[in-house]
């Protein structure tokens, strides 16, 4: 192994019961480079990184991992061992303790100790200096439970940065971040690179690879299909390598005709825990229309849709009208009765029952469809859930496996399947393609178009401006709990959206 190679995988194979997650993976990572790792959902990216982080310790996989020229053998409290080796990771699925503050989470397991007791002052001041140094938009004393998922991701990143690692692994760090925060992260990574830190970067957002990575390794079905300098590649080539076929367009165009207004929100104000979270939101949604909602982290997008679903803030003034009639929705049951469906933002917390099977997760919101008023007809349940899983191309050995064992993107597809099966009149999707690969995104977009063509009104929150522009008919932009304006997508541009989203207009 030459001097400038920090990491080398040699014939790494990892098996789970019934699944070969990685087979014979070999490639090298140069010291000080930003190394991109890409592949479809379930290709094995996270699994490979978990080997590096000690989640799957030495001996639970075959093959060798060379680190600084020596074989990496993480055993006995392997996760701490990895930290000691200088390997830090931001996991794809959030791993924060909700009841603790940002500062406590950042130093969890590494609390500064002064004569046997935790030195709180140092802990807080060090947290503050990390957050300031990298200009991260969270406060040390915030309780994680009250943060949005984007801020949680920021906290995870701060935690990894605080470990002063030689190798920093980022597994889809930007899936819940919006453009401004992503720019911030890119800057941080450039700084780290200048300091000689090696970074392994996983994302499903193709442009990010071309913005910052030096080298790109593509995995397909657990095998390395290519590992070459990013400069030699194009986004089209990468997608081709990932999915094994050409993809002509990213966004399918539907031929839909939006009809009457089905949902109207007028000057909605809402309060939660004594704080006004919505300060005047107005918009209308028509049948068969896809309305995009854009905005930065903390702009109130998720708060808005959760409130519409009756599961968050208390409405203090303003009106919500369904089919022209004012309604007050108190809780998700009522929302569903009114024909609403919600694909929530945080799939692990709000979307899935991880120990249960794919079938049971998909059918959970829809048991009334199967059998009589009491008993559940398991055969029709299985048939319907399987059909949905197939439509969305959920990758799994069987529909009976626990959702917790699926890759992140495939878990997201299961949440989608659940709500698509519920046949809503209005489907609200909070970042529905978070962590989903390009091929599967395309399938989801096609499904959205099909639903809209059937007359269903769709509200889609998305942090990806390209997606908002590519899929919606109109875009509502939010800023600090207010609706800043609604643009027709034909005349909207990324710049105009960003101007509204940053409160400049």
């Amino acid at each position: 192994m030459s001097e400038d190679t920090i990491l080398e995988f040699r014939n790494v194979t990892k098996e789970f019961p019934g699944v070969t997650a990685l087979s014979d993976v070999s490639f090298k990572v140069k010291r000080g480079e930003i190394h991109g790792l890409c592949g479809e959902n379930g290709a094995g990216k996270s699994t490979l990184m978990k080997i590096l982080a000690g989640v799957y310790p030495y001996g639970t996989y075959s093959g060798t991992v060379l680190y600084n020229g020596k074989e990496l053998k993480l055993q006995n409290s392997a996760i701490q061992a990895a930290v000691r080796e200088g390997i830090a990771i931001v996991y794809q699925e959030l791993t924060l303790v909700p009841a603790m503050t940002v500062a406590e989470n950042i130093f969890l397991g590494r609390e500064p100790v002064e004569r046997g007791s935790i030195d709180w002052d140092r802990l807080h001041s060090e947290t503050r200096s990390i957050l300031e140094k990298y200009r991260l938009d969270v406060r040390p004393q915030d309780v994680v439970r009250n943060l949005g998922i984007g801020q949680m991701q920021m906290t995870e990143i701060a935690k990894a940065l605080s470990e002063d690692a030689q190798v920093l692994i980022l597994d889809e760090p930007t899936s819940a971040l919006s453009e401004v925060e992503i720019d911030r992260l890119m800057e941080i990574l450039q700084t780290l690179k200048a300091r000689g830190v090696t970074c392994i970067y996983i994302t499903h957002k193709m442009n990010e690879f071309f913005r910052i990575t030096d080298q790109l390794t593509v995995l397909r079905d657990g095998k390395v299909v290519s590992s070459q300098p990013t400069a030699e590649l194009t986004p089209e080539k990468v997608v081709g390598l990932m999915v094994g076929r050409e993809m002509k367009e990213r966004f399918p165009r539907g031929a839909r005709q939006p009809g009457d207004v089905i949902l109207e929100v007028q000057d909605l104000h809402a309060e939660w825990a004594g704080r006004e979270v919505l300060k005047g939101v107005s918009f209308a949604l028509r049948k068969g229309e896809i309305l995009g909602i854009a905005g930065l982290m903390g702009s109130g997008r998720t708060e808005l849709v959760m409130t519409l679903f009756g599961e968050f803030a208390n409405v203090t003034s303003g009106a919500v009208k369904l089919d022209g009639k004012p309604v007050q929705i108190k809780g998700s049951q009522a929302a569903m009765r009114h024909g609403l469906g919600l694909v929530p933002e945080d799939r692990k917390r709000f979307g899935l029952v991880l120990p249960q099977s794919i079938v049971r997760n998909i059918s959970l919101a829809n048991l009334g469809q199967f059998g009589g008023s009491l008993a559940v007809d398991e055969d029709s349940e299985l048939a319907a859930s399987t059909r949905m899983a197939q439509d969305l191309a959920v990758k799994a050995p069987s529909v009976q496996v626990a959702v917790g064992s699926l890759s992140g993107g495939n878990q997201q597809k299961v949440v989608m399947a659940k709500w698509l099966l519920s046949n809503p009149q209005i489907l609200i999707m909070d970042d529905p393609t978070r962590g989903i690969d390009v091929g599967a995104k395309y399938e989801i977009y096609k499904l959205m178009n099909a639903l809209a063509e059937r007359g269903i009104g769709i509200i889609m929150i998305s942090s990806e401006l390209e997606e908002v522009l590519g899929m919606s008919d109109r875009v509502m932009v939010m800023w600090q709990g207010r609706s800043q304006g609604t643009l027709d997508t034909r005349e909207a541009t990324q710049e105009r959206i960003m101007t509204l989203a940053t409160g400049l207009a």
Partner: protein
Amino acid sequence: MSNSTVTQPAQPQKTLLSGLTRRFRQDFQTYTMIVALVAIWGYFAVATEGSYVSPQNISNLFRQMSVTSLMAAGMVLVIVTGNIDLSVGRLAGYVSVIVAYLQANTWTTVFPDQPALAAISSVIVGLSVGTLWGIAQGYIIAYLRVPAFIVTLGSLFILQGLVLLQTEGKTIPANQPVFSEIGQGYLPAELSWGLVAVIAAFLVFNMLNGRRNKRRYGFPLPALTVDVLKIAAYTVLLVVYVGVVNSYSIAPGIPYPVLLLALIAVVVTYVSNNTRFGRYAYAIGGNRDAARLSGISIKRNIFLIFVLMGFLCGVAGVVLASYVGYGTIGAGGGYELDVIASAILGGTSTLGGVGTIPGAMIGGLIMASLSTGLQMLNAPPALTYVIKGSVLVFAVLLDVYLKRNDS
């Protein structure tokens, strides 16, 4: 990664063996417990020179487990939703003393010399008391949001007081004709055989029906031999059991409380797997927030589970009074320990979301097997407690260890 998009509706039944190993992994704890049970029986059989497996003892063993196992069936659902009920033993005890009091004092004056009417009235009152208590507890826990641990702990104290009040420290006889049949009677031997035949026929019918439905949906069918073998195995177990209890010369036949337990276990199993109510319980335990956002009423579900738990305590209380033949201050005391232990031995996770009724029944059988076995060996009661506690911790330890090595 060798797996691809789900293409087959059901588990691809590649080989019989891989299907079986998969099932084995899933029901791991259940199988470990069956092995443990056989080992325990083997040990006691040798230690008691065979009298442990005599028809008399087998007949008694199952009857002994019935009171706590009736409650364990409900406890599984309570724990699955992430709750606990500490009051079950005392609630059953309270029901038993009320019923004993009615039997001994009230019915004799209200409708003298009508033992059947008296027994029916006792059953109705007993079940009502249990259910009402469950309603009250469930309401406070689900709607007023006081943690179940606290509500049921308080309940335990209150019931203890109520039992004292009801008995005034005396023992109340509950051994009147008809009523004592509930806990002490037997289904006659011929009818017991008849029942086996009916059950076997039902299993066959159910299998054929299931296969027809599966075919209608185009699912791959499990091999017919597997289905047939399964039914054969269940039938053999039933035949052996009935054969043994029927050969108990003094009182042949299936004890009524065992029959009642079997019925309730089957119904609660069905409810937990095949009704929305049951499904929701598992979803709530697995992820409360996700369940709520799927339009499930958490409050209503938890409330109903405590009502069911109360009802089952009522059933257990009536059986208890009839089985021991009197109501005393000590009635039901400490039963909650056996009930919770049965559920946990049977694979119910204290973290919620996981647990099965059949598992809890095996857990209950293990508990009862230990009690009766140690009794027959004349072991001091203190030792019984120590052994039961050790078995519980050891069983869970083993399970944790095996699961870790598995993944």
